[in-house]
């Protein structure tokens, strides 16, 4: 089954290698991985999607927690969530063939973000199936796809869910410096999730 892990990790050199290396060691292929800054100073948030047995979820999460730089791990699994992906698609299009692509973009609620006499670039955000849909339709239309760049999935639980680990790290609005200090020094107060 498809697992989606959301993890907060310390924003330090090599941390991503440690996370990726764990999956390599378990011989699990990472389908997608997105990383960026989180609401906490000094912590990055990553969303990692991988295919593994249902039983493997517990062990992967437990193993991620064993990494010194990993502060919190959530296995989103089947929980209600919002998942999005960003895609940039460059399509060959002459002034004559543009209008058909414009229509498609409209239908898919995407945007044109770059336009030249030979090509245009489409930006689209949405669930995976929607992006796949646009790509399929573009392939079937006259326009030739030149490049596709996809971000991988980003996921957030629906509702007011915050893990015990993050609660112990303090409020999201706290002074940034303070939050960083807490994250590195006072994790002893972390309660079990």
């Amino acid at each position: 089954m498809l697992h989606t892990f959301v993890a907060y990790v310390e924003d330090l050199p090599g941390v991503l290698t440690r996370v990726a290396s764990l999956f390599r060691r378990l011989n699990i292929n990472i389908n997608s991985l997105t990383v960026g800054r989180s609401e906490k100073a000094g912590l990055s948030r990553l969303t990692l999607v991988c295919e593994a047995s249902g039983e493997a979820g517990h062990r992967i999460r437990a193993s991620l927690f064993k990494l010194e730089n990993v502060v919190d791990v959530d296995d989103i699994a089947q929980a209600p969530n919002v998942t999005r992906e960003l895609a940039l698609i460059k399509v060959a299009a002459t002034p004559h063939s543009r209008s058909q692509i414009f229509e498609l973009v409209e239908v898919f609620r995407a945007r044109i973000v770059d336009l030249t006499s030979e090509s245009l670039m489409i930006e689209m955000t949405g669930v995976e199936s929607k992006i796949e849909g646009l790509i399929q339709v573009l392939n079937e239309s006259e326009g030739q796809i030149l490049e596709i760049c996809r971000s991988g999935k980003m996921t957030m639980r629906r509702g007011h869910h915050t893990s015990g680990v993050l609660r112990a790290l303090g409020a999201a609005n706290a002074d940034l410096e303070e939050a960083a200090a807490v994250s590195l020094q006072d994790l002893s107060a972390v309660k079990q999730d």
Partner: protein
Amino acid sequence: MGTNATTQAANAHLTTPTRLTGAEIVWATLVGEGVTDVFGYPGGAILPVYDALRKFPIHHTLVRHEQGASHMADGYARASGKVGVAIATSGPGATNLVTGIATAMLDSIPVVCITGNVSSKILGTDAFQEVDITGITLPVTKHNFLINKTEDIAPAIRYAFQIAQSGRPGPVLVDITKDAQQGTAIFDFAAAKPRAHRPHPMLKVEESGLAHAAELIRNAKRPVILAGHGVSESGAMEQLRTLAERAQIPVALTLLGLGNFPASHPLNLGMMGMHGESWVNNAIQEADLLIACGMRFDDRVTGSTSTYATKAKKIHIEVDPAEVNKNIKVDVALIGDLRAVLEDLLPRIPGRDGSAWLKSIDASKGAVAVRDIKNIADSGHLYAAHVMHDLWRITAGNAIVVTDVGQHQMWEAQYFHHENPRTLITSGGLGTMGFALPAAIGAKTACPEKEVWVIAGDGGFQMTSPELSTIVQEGLKINIAVINNGYLGMVRQWQEFFYERNYEATPLVSPDFVKLADAHGIPGRAVRTRAEVADAVAEARSSKGTYLLNFMVEKEDAVYPMIPAGNALHEMIRRPGKDPLVESPEDI
């Protein structure tokens, strides 16, 4: 070892923040962490650290190969329960540590390795003796650090000590660039203290789980306790014993668990798994309840997992959440420190009559004993099993035994009966040949008052035999027993059983080990018959310094019983006598 003056100076650094070089900070921090002994090998990128050593009250043992340093630190840790420390230079010095680091990782041993690296300006340029050791050791350490600023050295080393010892212990590596060693910073030991240890967020010991476990134990007819290395790591020997005695439950041990429950105890079954005695494995297969305490259902313990103890409910008490339900699905998981969990569990366990089950296990021992080599009359041949049995008898089981890997390791586990924890030091998880000699040096350094025996095969001994010089240079007294059968015995045994006796690459030419010892100034003698064993062992023990015994044992002997890899636990190859074929448990 430093003088009183260096001790006083080092102690003063710990209380009064002082400007020191990075190299001095390395030692000052180690002193603060309670380190008295380190094992290492100098080189260009670690020279500043070596230059500063004379100012600190720490004893350095010069090894002959860095693999020896990491094994010595490992043996030191296993014997003492303290953190072992290994030091090496960059590049090949660092890569040579790796086998020892992996050995410590697989057996959860607290070791801190400190390596030098090239200056930070030239990091990543393939400079002379530069290697990405933090990258290389990433999968075989609990954590590692690349430090290129002097002020980061003390916090990193203190953090490394915390990581190495906390939760499930393991090795940590701190790689320090040469310029960080040469720079200066204010050394403030107290301020370098790491944040409090963060317990694994998935530790979980619930009231309902404890109640369920207690109920299973109360209602079990055929329970078996499986005790592992976690018992000694957690210091739960007494709690384990109370549980076993109060509920009258027999105890089977993993290889690394040997000594954590007294061998002489009537409830001790002995070692389980691939070379466990038939009554132990049959008891596990027949059990209706397994209580796993600080063990991880390793494949050498379970055999085929699909046929493993299918009639048994399983309780798993384990400190590492990633080990629960990994190999064997369990009914109750109590994820926490073993000692704490047992203390919570014990008040719920009433006295219990286990005599029927114990009697039935006992009855299955008799027939086995007849075929046991130990009970077969002296035929003039020398069997390794005899050597182990005699060593155990003569040392009254009080020695620390450090084994290598292979047949002799299993014979030791079968015939040397360990009463106390930390008296068997062996590479169980990684199965590292060459481990014994250096690990014994570490053990002897940690416990100079203890009698230490190395038991190694002729193959493994040659992997690290240059450490004989280290023994001599350090003036250590270690007794060495080489179990010499002219083969890589365990591999030969597999070839005999599973590869139609095609002894490819297993016959082994060795030097005359007695002469090799002599070249190091170490006395020794060869032993060819059982009649000589007692006298030879006495001579080794009474010798003032290290002594080597070269036991010329039966060449094509095999370790029995044996469960072929992937077979069910009860499908074992039994001792010859009747018929050395795979037998079922009904055939006892």
